[in-house]
Each structure stands twice: as C-alpha cells, then as structure tokens.
C-alpha cells in the first residue's frame, strides 16, 4: 500500500499533475491569520488554542489563540485566528 502510494506520488510529480489528485494535502497560509487545509481526513482536536487535522499519514497541528473554524467541510477546512505555530507529526512509523 505504501509502495502504491509512493508510486502514485512519483507519477504525479513526474507528469507535473495537481498534487491533490494523488491525495496529497495542501496547506495554505495567509499571513498568520488564516490557514486553509485541503484534502484533509478529519479533525482530531479543536480548541481555541490548538487545531489538529489529520491529513493522510500526517497530523497537522496549528497552534495559536482565538482559533475559529471559519469553514469546515468534507474536504476543506479554513482556520482563522492568531496562528503562532504549524507543526507536522508523522503518524506512520
């Protein structure tokens, strides 16, 4: 499965296709006020100080203050607030 995922990613990069087509997660930051995560797999933690979103084999943790889920849908989540740090945690060992 891992090999298949890696092969798919490799094909996407080689042919310069949109990374989302391979199931990659896109994180877009605007200043330190907005963060947009596309192709997520669900939210694991949400408080006004920390938001953790599952994204494939990673966990994206956004910490700050006054964090609000401006928009939360099936594939996209938009976070608004005072963002202080963005951390990646690799779930797959």
């Amino acid at each position, binding site marked *: 499965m891992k090999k298949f995922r890696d092969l798919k990613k490799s094909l996407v990069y080689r042919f310069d296709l949109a990374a989302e087509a391979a199931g990659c997660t896109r994180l877009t930051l605007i200043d330190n006020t907005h963060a947009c995560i596309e192709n997520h797999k669900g939210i694991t933690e949400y408080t006004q100080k920390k938001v953790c979103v599952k994204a494939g084999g990673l966990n994206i943790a956004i910490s700050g203050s006054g964090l609000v889920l401006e928009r939360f*849908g099936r594939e996209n989540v938009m976070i608004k607030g005072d963002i202080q740090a963005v951390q990646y945690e690799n779930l797959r060992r």
Partner: protein
Amino acid sequence: MKLWSFFTGYVMIRVEGLSLEKFLNLAAEQGVVIVNARRMSYTVLNAVVSARGFKKLQSAATERYSINLQKQAGVPYQFSRLILRKVLFVGLALITAGVFAASLFVWEVKINGLGYNEAAALKEELVALGIYGGALKSVIDVKEAEKRLMIDHPDYAWINVRLRGAVASVEVVPAIPVPEIVDDTRPCNIVAAKDALIESVTARTGRACVEKGDTVREGDMLISGLVWDPGMARMLFVARGEVIGSVWYSGAASAPLYRKTRSKTGRSQTQRVIAIGADTAVVDGECSFAEYQTAVVGASYIAGLFLPVKLMVLEHSEVVTEYVPAELQGLRVYLEERAYYEAAGKTEANIVSHVTVFSHNENVLTATAYVQTFEDIGKVVYLEE
C-alpha cells in the same frame, strides 16, 4: 458565499456534548458545511450551518449531542415573519400596486430645443394631442403626435416624442430658414427695407438713385432696374448692388425711484386657527393691526393623522410701509443695460455706437437706449409688382 447563505437561510446552533471533534467529522461526512465554529468550552461549540444542514444534523446526531437553535436568519425566515404581519404585507402590496399604477401615467412633459415661450406654446398643442401631465400612456399615439406636429410646424426640422417612464420627452430641432431665392432673369429694383441714412452705395447693375448722406424711408428706390434716358431706348436690368445705411434701433426700460419696504414695529399678536383641508376657521379674534405679517409658529393635528384637521397658531407682527429711495447710480446702470439689450435684440447687424437717454416721470426713471448699425438696407422688388 455569505450572500448566498443569506438568500438560502442559515441558523446559529449551540452544540453540547463530549468529543465535539467527532461531531464535526460526522457533520462533514453528512455533507454539512459548518461555518464559524467556535469552541466556547470543553463541551460547548457554537456554529453556523445552513437551514438544510441543520435538519440533517438533527437526524444524524441523536443522543450524544444536544443541538439547540439560537437564531434563524436569511431571506426565507424574514419572509415567513413578514407573512405573519398581514397588515404590513398588505401595505407593501398596496404601495407596490400604487407605484405600478402611477407609472402608467405621464407625470411630466419636458420639451428640449426651444426657448421658454415657444416651449409653453408647444405644451398647449401637446395637450390637444393628448400628451399632458396625468394622461394615460397607453392611449397616447406617439407617431400620430409627431406627424401632426411636423405638419403644423414647417419651421421644425425634426420632432421626436418619447415616453420614458413617467416623463414625456419632446425633442425639437428648429429648421434653418431657407434663404430668399432671387430670380436672376427678371428685371427688378432695389428699394429700402427700412428707414436709414445712406452711408455708401455700390450699384453693380442698374442706376443708383441715392447717394451718401441721403435719408431714405422704407420703400424708397435705391437702385433702379429701369434706365430710360431721353433719346435712348428703355433698358431693363436686374438691379444688383449694396446700399449700406445707418439704422437706429431703440429700446427702453423703467423702474421706480423709490422701493416700498415693510418694517416691523415690534408689536405682535397670536391667533389660533383651525384648518380643515384648505379652509380655515378663526378661534381667537381677528388681528387688530392695520398692516401685519403672519408666520405659523405651531401646528398640530386634531384627531390624529387620519383626518386633515389641524390646529395652527399664527403670529401676526405689525409692520409699517416705508418708501426707501433706490440707489440711483446702480439703478441707472441697470436700466441702461436692460434698454441696450432690448434695442440690440432687434437687429443682428454689428452695433457701431449707442446712446442712452434718461427721463424722470413722477416716481419712475426710464432709460431709452438707441443703437446705431451699418447694414445693407436693400430689398429686391420685381418690376411688374
């Protein structure tokens, strides 16, 4: 997106329960988009969802979570609240119907391209054609009106009548007058078109009958097309030439030397009056001043706004009439200017000089302006006429 949500309707909800992250993921699985979700405490989440999404959440999230509706907003909810207010709804419907009905009539007639007096005369003709303030638009035949106006006014080059909203707009383009066509084959004389003092005579064909310095009256011969010397045959010419004469035009303007003014004495009297529509009935006695000015200092409706009955309080201030002499120098300049422009308006030729004469008559100062022009005073008259 916010505008779309407003039109489709949205609700503010308060979700209470444990593991609110699971609730968010559950909502996402159901296809419900959650907007502005804010965690208030460990077990409380405030969010905004669409009206349809709220129904899905209510059925999906059962015992684990308690979803309370806090506020409903958007067009569908506002409309349902409006429906309950029947009187307001009926009033809005009546106003809409009234505006629509009002737009079926012409409220104003505008005329462009003509002077004030000509436009006023044309407005009266338009009334006869059914175009006036208050006329029903559907019965106005615009093409017929344009045709009738063009037939009745050969001095108009183009007329356009357009009904735009509640305004009937009439565009007029006056025609350029056709110049007088002179027949070059018919013998003619040149006679004086107006009284003048001859300044110069240039006879190209025919015989000049006047010379510089002569005074002529209207109709006097200037250049003759008939030349019949003793012992010679009679010769007929098409008289041509230029006769420049000095012509005087006059204009007058008058104004009183004293201005009538009314000044307040300081005494005043209050009077109450009941007004029913345009009629009034005096409550207190009549005013005792010989001359006075009236001002409305208070007004209130009796019996509310439904009846046009008002109680008005009038204040009468006593005044005396005085005659104040007008500022003479300024008045002379003003009258001279008015008289000059009246005289100048009678001719299109260049004005070479002018003189103004002032006269007093009782209380009135009159200025008479005389303007002098040099112009061609000749007019063609055919010999058999």
